[in-house]
């Protein structure tokens, strides 16, 4: 994961998150907000940009502090840094975009436990320089925002016949799409299409094992060790 960050590679750091390593559609991280808030295109963009903001700030701070934070307690430190920025964005959104704040609700606080952010902190920002970390965050954040925007648009258009609140006068709408079942369905179809276009199959493991952080993660390794021990 930690590529060399020479000048030539900087552009790659930026673009990899948007397409090749898109956090939502390829590495399947941060599924909870992807499914929960995307009933409207505007919600998707709002959530995506809020997450991008937290991701950029936390990557910046963590890459600056990477030599100061003791390795043993790094995860709690990262979580506190991330949670601080989440609180900040909660304040900003409450003040300037109260409508969006109300419709995102609880999920805004839950950015704290979005595994994209902790995953990038652990896998990238804690090993790379400041500039590369910020570019990585911008790319990953934009990739996440694009995926959420696509999900939100599809669900809003099919589910309510509107797009950003503008009535499209569709002959048929399916309310199911803005319900929870439609979220799972839309994401499934989008991932299938991405697979088809990119000509690859999805990773066999989802969730914790697909996390870019899995190799470093003590819990994941421990789980594997125990499995091996049980097999013996």
């Amino acid at each position, binding site marked *: 994961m930690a590529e060399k960050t020479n000048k030539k590679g900087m552009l790659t750091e930026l673009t990899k998150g948007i397409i090749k390593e898109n956090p939502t559609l390829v590495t399947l991280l941060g599924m909870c907000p992807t499914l929960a808030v995307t009933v409207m295109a505007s919600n998707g963009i709002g959530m995506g940009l809020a997450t991008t903001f937290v991701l950029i700030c936390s990557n910046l701070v963590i890459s600056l502090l990477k030599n100061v934070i003791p390795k043993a307690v790094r995860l709690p430190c990262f979580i506190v840094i991330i949670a601080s920025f989440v609180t900040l964005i909660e304040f900003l959104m409450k003040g300037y975009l109260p409508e969006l704040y109300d419709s995102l609700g609880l999920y805004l606080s839950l950015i704290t436990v979005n595994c994209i952010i902790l995953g990038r902190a652990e896998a990238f920002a804690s090993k790379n320089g400041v500039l590369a970390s910020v570019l990585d965050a911008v790319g990953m954040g934009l990739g996440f925002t694009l995926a959420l925007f696509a999900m939100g648009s599809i669900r809003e258009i099919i589910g309510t016949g509107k797009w950003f609140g503008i009535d499209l006068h569709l002959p048929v709408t399916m309310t199911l799409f803005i319900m929870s079942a439609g979220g799972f369905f839309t994401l499934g179809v989008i991932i299938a299409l991405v697979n088809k276009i990119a000509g690859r199959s999805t990773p066999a493991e989802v*969730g914790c094992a697909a996390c870019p952080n899995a190799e470093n993660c003590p819990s994941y390794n421990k789980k594997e060790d125990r499995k091996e021990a049980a097999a013996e």
Partner: protein
Amino acid sequence: MTLIVILLNAILVDNFVLSKFMGICPFLGVSKKLDSAVGMGAAVTFVMVCATLCTYPIYTFILVPMGLEYLKTIAFILIIALFVQLVEMVLKKKVQSLYNALGVYLPLITTNCAVLGVTILNVDKEYGFAQSLVNSLGGGLGFSLALIIFSGVRSRVNSADVPEMFKGVPATLIAASIVSVSFMGFSGLFG
């Protein structure tokens, strides 16, 4: 609202996984086998209830009197991380059998949004202590129920012949959508 209504509401109507979309990662990752689904469900239920036991007094008796409600996200996630670590250490030393059953899943729970979600939800809905505990218990049981049901569905999906592009995650998500439709039948059960 009576406690039993809160409990059933949290299990069936507002199911954490299928209607609130919290804890999707473990839902997709750990639902491959029945026994791991049961283990994960039990661990999440346990941590949810205990996390509420810890966060409720801290919110009510420390954050609110000092006017620091906005710090709840930071405070709660720290409490949960600390608590999960503590439980793991205590179980490892004292209750070996429980540790063997749940220990594998405990560290994964710190970043499970269902746990942070339920503690913040209790505060947002202004539940009292007993109501918060019941809501957390219901949330955990609902999470376990979804995981257990889905582990059964999934074993059928995995052996089914689906188009190449849908193999793996997409087919799993579409199966989840159908399970979610069936849970929609409960909506409006308690008005």
